[in-house]
């Protein structure tokens, strides 16, 4: 079954990657001449044209695209205009930081949302429920950069508990992960609450209660596992959203993830880097979908891969 799913993944990947590369190419092409941004202020127009020719940007677009694609097929993923080196390692360099932050943010989100959602569902219409709903609305309504800066001012500057920015140690991870995590926790808590409520109303929960086993087993084993599927779905969607880099949060915390790289590449119209970055994101997205399917299967034996 896993092989089947993997085969499907490969089948899906080809058309998606192709579509993506074409759209990105068109967009970057429309964004105009990258040399305008590259060339020094005091260079002449002739210098610029020489640069254009050196990069082959004077060719008609379809020729450029075909050349690009055939290079890719022969394993050459292009050279970054701004770094002057191969684009692939530039992108792959950023991947660990992005993946780390994504994972940490998800851990934070789940650690907050799952207990909160369960508590709210078990105490429907109580003060707890209300508090969870209120907090989740707040979490959803506050812009990330604002939350991030507030966290820096409070925990970094005022309390001096945590490092302000950067990466490297576990302490560096906390604030950005919390910034992202709380935003996702808001949505997730509502979802956990809803799916717990739905699950708790199911016949098999009544069966479980009728067995006279402890409540925590009914909730933790019978209900939670069944309520997990939508949670997993949303988590995977969030992971996908984060794979492109949590641009705002990365910028605030000077976190060296993909988001900053991509945005700078977009600003400088660095075609090769944008293409590879989007490729990598697409591949990661497909992998996450694949992983999600496997997790579904582990949670729920009825699901076919």
């Amino acid at each position, binding site marked *: 079954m896993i092989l089947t799913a993997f085969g499907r993944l490969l089948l899906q990947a080809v058309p998606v990657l192709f579509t993506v590369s074409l759209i990105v190419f068109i967009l970057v092409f429309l964004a105009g001449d990258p040399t305008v941004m590259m060339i020094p202020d005091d260079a002449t127009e002739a210098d610029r044209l020489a640069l254009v020719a050196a990069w082959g940007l004077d060719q008609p677009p379809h020729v450029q695209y075909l050349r690009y694609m055939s290079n890719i097929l022969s394993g050459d993923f292009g050279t970054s205009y701004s770094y002057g080196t191969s684009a692939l390692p530039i992108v792959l360099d950023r991947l660990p930081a992005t993946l780390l932050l994504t994972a940490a943010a998800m851990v934070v989100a789940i650690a907050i949302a799952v207990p909160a959602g369960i508590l709210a569902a078990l105490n429907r219409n109580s003060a707890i429920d209300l508090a969870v709903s209120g907090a989740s609305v707040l979490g959803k309504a506050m812009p990330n950069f604002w939350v991030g800066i507030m966290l820096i001012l409070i925990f970094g500057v005022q309390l001096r508990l945590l490092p302000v920015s950067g990466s490297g140690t576990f302490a560096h991870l906390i604030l950005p992960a919390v910034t992202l995590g709380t935003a996702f926790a808001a949505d997730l808590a509502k979802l956990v609450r809803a799916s717990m409520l739905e699950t708790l109303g199911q016949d*098999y929960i009544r*069966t479980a209660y*009728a*067995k*006279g086993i402890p*409540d925590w*087993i009914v909730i933790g084993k019978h209900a939670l596992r*069944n309520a997990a599927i939508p949670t997993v779905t949303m988590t995977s969607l969030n992971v996908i959203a984060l794979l492109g880099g949590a641009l705002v949060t990365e910028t605030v915390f000077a976190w060296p993830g993909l988001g900053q790289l991509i945005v700078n590449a977009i600003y400088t119209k660095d075609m090769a880097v944008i293409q590879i970055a989007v490729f990598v994101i697409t591949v990661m997205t497909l992998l996450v979908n694949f992983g999600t399917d496997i997790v579904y299967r582990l949670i729920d034996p*009825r699901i076919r891969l």
Partner: protein
Amino acid sequence: MSTQAIPNSPAGKEPVLRYRNASVVLPRPRGGDLPLIRGVDLDVYRNEIVALVGESGSGKTMTALSTLRLLPQNARFSADEAVLNGHDLRSLNARGWRALRGSHVGIVFQEPLSSLNPVLTIGDQIGEVLYHKRGLSRRQRRAEATDLLARMGLARPAQLLDEYPFQLSGGMRQRVMLAIAMAGEPALLIADEPTTALDNSVQAQVLELIVSTAADTGVGVLMITHDLSVVAQVADRVAVMRHGEMVETGDVREVFRAPKAAYTRHLIDLAPRIPAVVRDPATAQTPPAADAAAGTPLLELRNVTKHYVQPGNFWGSRTTLALDNVSLSLAEGKTLGLVGESGSGKSSLARIIIGLSKPDSGAVLFDGRDLFGPEQARRSDVQIVFQDPLSSLNPRMRIVDIVTEPLGEKQRLTRDQRRHEAETLLETVGLPRHMISRFPHELSGGQRQRVGIARALSVRPRLLICDEPVSALDVSVQAEIIALLQRLREEFRLTTIFIAHGLDSVYAVSDDIVVLEKGRVVEHGHRDTVFGSPQHPYTRKLIDAILDSDPDNSRFKRDKADYPQAARVSTQLEQTSPII
């Protein structure tokens, strides 16, 4: 009526369950109380099967759930007396209830799939009862669970432990449920509509099992059902509920022979009976031979084959053969009964005739013209009434629009004409005119199904297909709808195809019967021929599974030995002071 003995109960013994003047009320959101059950008196003794009957919503399930305190949130239970296996239910605290559940009372719910946790193995679901209720070790649990499953008549019980509910058939699931309920060795077993979701033949097996379990372990059984044939077949005593109250209790034979309450009488009148031909083929009427020769049939199917393609594995996909070379014909004005197990292709056939799906090969001739040929027949001459009255009505359309929709947009009816038409149609199906401006969810199940029939009738069809039009309805409503269909059939001179699970009702309404098995027609003939002398073993099996509503004619005989009082020493339950 506090502690007086209930008539016809085995006197002088302590019952496993004893309710006196029990009631459950639910506070309404805007004040006031909604009584769900009122003043219920009920006794269940060891090795006794008590059937609780009544129409939907009469409070049967509430009564049962109150013995486990699984009532809706906020619901309040009160009683003059409520004793289960020696424990006063009125004074249990949360831990007391937990201790009671599983080890003193076990329950089997109606829907075997949804009542089992879909993501846990069978072994796990039985094992946790064995662990928490009987403290068995891992190895003991496995052995005991295997033994339990084997006792429930399941083949290869050891393997089953590692399987999941979805891998089991309906009957197997219900056996597993029973195993779970019995795992804690309870004194009282509650079975809430344990067979409603099952096929006729599987139903018989499960009932058999419940009866034998009661006989083997001496457990008292409270069996909830609305099917009187089931009651007649298995129950020792019967309790009839209506509107939350107990209207009659008594020995099953007596109740069936001489029902006291008007309501009970009404129910017993509706109870299905085995057609006489089945018991005595001699009573069969010979089919009128003339019919066969009479001209072209209205509907004729020639070698219709239908496959469904489902997404399957890597490259290919799975195909299901839903209809396999089906040929049949139906003369004008006749009713054809279509029977067969679930999944045998009945609905597929209906969808093809109605034009919702295309056959892979074969032809469907309506009035001599090919429905799928180049020159298509008038489709509006064929209409359908669906099984589920709720999902077959658009929840966001008013009844007036629903019933007049088939009249078509081309006809350009004015608002008033439309209204008038709708009112007439409602009247035809016996609904008050004013209902035309309602939405489907504002109607009861029976009313909705009447709307479905009105919609089908709006274009004056010549052929009406009823795909299980009553299986989602209450017994008494079922009878109403079938009676209505009978009447309309004559009134409108309809040719009808009638699909249903209940063979007795199919027999009652049909002229001819077609039996489908795995998409193939295995038998086709006059109803008396098919029921009286079935040729195919499959048909025989179906007919044998019909239960008769006659307590004297029970198939589930059992030994009613006297069991000693609670063999196991019951654990002392934690109690709080009585809440009354």
